[in-house]
């Protein structure tokens, strides 16, 4: 389970960090006859061999259904599943495992809160407050329940640098706001939200805050108790783990009071046609057979991140992001979209008169993977009056050479359209 570099080091050392890269088989391949440069981790990160192996190991040695069996494999599967929960609990410093709900991903986590926490509280006098910076997964669930109940979805504005205007957002909070739902880091622009101020202000009005942490967990240390968010949602596949697994963190007293979301096995203590007794936390929200191998993989991903050290990762990625921004600015016709004061692991940009899609294809042809288009954040694109952007995003396994290859690749793009 050890990343392939020698030991936990408090100051990041890019040289040593570079060794991590060989843990990632997907990264170490040729694409279109070039060694891959993967700059699309904001869409989905790659898994280290340790995670892939742990999933195979679980599936070939320990698999069975959880919670419901007394035979050895069922016991082992339950251990794997609950150990992963414990791991996640410690990783974000939650108070206890009752606060850690396994879901299928960030989207599922947010929908759970929308239906179980918010919807019963909504009527036409009530509001849900989001920002203009959100991913569709933190917009559409609120639109759906607002439509169903007549409540209003209100949207805090962003500035030209692509940052939430914190004061304006805070000014929109009043006691008719049922929930503030905002991203920790924008997936389209990398902007970091000023969560402390917003959460404090919301709590002064006794309004809880859901944080969409999909883009944050693999890039910075999350201390959920210090942050004091009421709900925090994230996905395994954006933090070196597998797809199909995610987490909803919720404060225990809030989760306690919420009705179940989905019905099924495991979330009940007793089923009778005259009435059903729901299970305790966290099981009340985990209906049906869970994604056990996904939990195993997510647990292994967290072990990996812990070994690498979240502080080291932050420093490493920050150095690369700064280099990337500096280098991008040397290219004629490149415009950076999103210049937040506090920006993490992501840079969006356009090139004059060249559509982002064409940029993507020409880079891909050189083995360089970036994302192009609206990044599931159409309102952000609309704000900037763009059909889409090109976006390069970083993770633990990227290195300076990746940035150099990327910048050189852009030269070819411009050459073709010259």
């Amino acid at each position, binding site marked *: 389970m050890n990343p392939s570099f020698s030991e936990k080091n408090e100051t990041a050392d890019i040289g040593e960090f570079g060794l991590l890269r060989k843990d990632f088989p997907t990264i170490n391949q040729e694409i279109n006859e070039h060694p891959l440069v993967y700059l699309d981790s904001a869409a989905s990160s790659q898994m280290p061999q340790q995670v892939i192996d742990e999933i195979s190991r679980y599936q070939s040695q320990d698999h069975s259904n959880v919670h419901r069996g*007394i035979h050895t494999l069922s016991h082992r599967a339950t251990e794997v599943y609950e150990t992963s929960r414990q791991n996640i609990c410690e990783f974000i410093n939650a108070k206890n495992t009752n606060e850690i709900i396994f879901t299928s991903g960030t989207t599922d986590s947010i929908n759970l809160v929308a239906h179980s926490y918010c919807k019963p509280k909504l009527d036409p006098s009530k509001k849900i407050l989001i920002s203009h910076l959100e991913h569709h997964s933190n917009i559409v669930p609120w639109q759906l329940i607002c439509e169903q109940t007549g409540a209003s979805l209100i949207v805090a504005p962003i500035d030209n640098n692509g940052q939430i205007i914190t004061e304006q957002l805070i000014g929109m909070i009043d006691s008719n706001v049922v929930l503030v739902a905002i991203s920790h880091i924008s997936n389209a622009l990398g902007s970091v939200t000023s969560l402390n101020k917003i959460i404090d202000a919301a709590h002064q009005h006794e309004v809880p805050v859901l944080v969409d942490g999909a883009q944050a967990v693999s890039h910075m240390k999350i201390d959920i108790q210090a942050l004091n968010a009421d709900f925090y949602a994230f996905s395994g596949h954006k933090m070196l783990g597998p797809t199909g697994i995610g987490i909803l963190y919720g404060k225990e007293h809030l989760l306690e009071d919420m009705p179940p979301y989905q019905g099924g096995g495991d979330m009940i203590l007793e089923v009778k046609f005259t009435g059903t007794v729901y*299970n305790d936390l966290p*099981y009340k929200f985990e209906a049906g057979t869970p994604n056990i191998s996904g939990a195993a993989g997510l647990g292994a991903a967290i072990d990996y991140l812990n070994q690498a050290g979240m502080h080291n990762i932050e420093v490493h990625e920050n150095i690369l992001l700064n280099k990337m921004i500096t280098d991008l600015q040397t290219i004629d016709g490149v415009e950076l979209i999103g210049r937040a004061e506090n920006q993490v692991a992501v840079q969006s940009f356009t090139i004059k008169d060249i559509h982002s899609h064409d940029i993507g294809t020409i880079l891909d042809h050189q083995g360089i993977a970036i994302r192009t288009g609206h990044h599931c954040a159409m309102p952000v694109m609309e704000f900037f009056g763009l059909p889409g952007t090109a976006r390069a995003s970083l993770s633990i396994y990227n290195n300076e050479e990746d940035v150099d290859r990327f910048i050189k690749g852009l030269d070819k793009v411009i050459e073709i359209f010259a």
Partner: protein
Amino acid sequence: MKRDNSENKSLKELYRQLIIHHAKNPLNFGKLSNNPIRAEGINPLCGDKIRIYLNINEADTIEGLTFEGTGCAISIASASLMTTTLRNMKKYQANQYALNLISNLNEPKSQEAGQLMMDSQEINALEGVKDFPSRIKCATLSWQTFISALNNKKITTTEK
């Protein structure tokens, strides 16, 4: 075949004669009159369900303690042993005893031969579950339900 010995040994530890005996002939099985305190314990793993009835007198002594329900040999025997052990204890003593037993059963087996888990020979018959992690909850269900009853919690589950 060669394995039969060690295997039989730990199975025999789990299903000691005393346990089988209590399972087949549980003591203090039934309701209490006099409007007792009640609590229900569920082990959703296997559907075991235990109801505890409890009377505490003015001197804070457990005066009456019975149980009802269905369960495996381990949970029925354990409940039977619980009623005989905790009856006549002071409330705080009984609470402490139950907590100790639960925590002892969740600890690994003592390496030192002859060292007793609890001071009662009978109660120590429960120690056989330590080789059967998935059965520890069966042994602790009634004790946990007893603690819940003391704390006026109506439904307890071992599912954690």
